[in-house]
């Protein structure tokens, strides 16, 4: 393993936070934006993590994409054996240069994400705020997770839309303060994803609300708004809602698909 280089104008360090509080994630986003704007030759992503969640992987993926888009080499610094095992299991090693010093190593650039997932469920967890900025960041991070799963574009587009519609619906209609938390968990299996959102906003059961007959009727009625819930009904296979004793809305959305590996 190569030692981590001293930070210079051309080589900059960026640390993945161990504890992923909203503030820590926002700070990571801001640091990444600043680094990329500075156009260094290389960013070394420090990953001294005792435990690794899908959200950590999501941050790493986000950094990988941002650097690749800006033509900046990204390298993992001091990855733990556990992290390397996780990257190997997810078939993501190819997307990160690990301890290499060869500037021509093209492993930094994300290529077609065709991770051959096993039968294990991959868990995605993230907590974000009920503000437009935080929701937008959460969507961006979720898109990175979908890309890491290697799903086809059309399916990623559907799942991104589902995430967007739910997250924005909570943000706009839950009555939550901008610094209130919204949590999301994704359980990705080889042929399906369950997304579960939880928030402490006003009680709302969307499974009882989507009553549009068809979208063509919507057009004939010249209806321009209120299509989010019927769209969710079309884009998912099942929605379930509970209001917990702790006063939280818990909405789960299931989406299944065929074999995407062929």
């Amino acid at each position, binding site marked *: 393993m190569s030692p981590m280089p001293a930070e210079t104008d051309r080589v900059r360090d960026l640390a993945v936070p161990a504890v992923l509080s909203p503030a820590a994630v926002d700070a990571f986003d801001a640091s990444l934006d600043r680094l990329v704007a500075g156009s260094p030759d290389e960013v070394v992503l420090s990953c001294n993590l005792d435990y690794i969640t899908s959200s950590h992987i999501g941050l790493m993926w986000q950094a990988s994409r941002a650097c690749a888009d800006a033509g900046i080499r990204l390298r993992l610094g001091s990855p733990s054996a556990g992290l390397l095992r996780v990257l190997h299991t997810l078939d993501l090693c190819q997307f990160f240069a690990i301890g290499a010093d060869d500037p021509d190593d093209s492993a930094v650039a994300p290529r077609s994400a065709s991770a051959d997932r096993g039968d294990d469920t991959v868990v995605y967890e993230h907590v974000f705020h009920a503000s437009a900025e935080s929701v937008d960041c959460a969507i961006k991070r979720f898109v990175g997770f979908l890309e890491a799963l290697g799903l086809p574009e059309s399916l990623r*587009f*559907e799942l991104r839309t589902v995430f*967007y*519609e739910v997250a924005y619906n909570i943000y706009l209609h839950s009555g939550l303060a901008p610094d209130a938390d919204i949590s999301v968990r994704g359980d990705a299996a080889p042929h399906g994803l369950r997304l579960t959102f939880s928030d402490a906003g006003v009680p709302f059961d969307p499974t009882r609300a989507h009553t549009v007959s068809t*979208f063509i009727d919507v*057009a004939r009625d*010249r*209806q321009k708004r209120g*299509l989010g819930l019927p*769209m969710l009904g079309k884009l998912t296979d099942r929605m379930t809602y509970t209001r917990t004793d702790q006063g939280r809305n818990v909405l789960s959305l299931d989406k299944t698909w065929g074999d995407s590996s062929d």
Partner: protein
Amino acid sequence: MTDSNINRRTLNDDTVLITAGWTLDNNNAHEMVDAIMLAQADGYKFIIIDMRDLEFLSSAGVGAILGTVETNREAGGDIVLCNLSEGVQHVLTVLDLVDYLTIVPNMDVAVSRCTAKT
């Protein structure tokens, strides 16, 4: 970071081109509605919406188009969508809208489609 620019350009007496930005969602769907309704008020029978840059279409974006298309059709015209990405096309397919909306591959086909109906 959001490029939500919605631009309008007149192609001929009957047809106007509206170019979508890279998202059409809660943040800018009302701008698309305004652009379409202004073109309708100006008497354009055909509105071509070029989606070549559109990477994301939310329910608000779908509503902007669905809620306005019948006005053009009642006037003997239409709203024609062109240059859709695979993702946008896919979502419209899932919503059972590809046969209802007029969707063509590119601008040339869109213009000729409008000309043929004039």
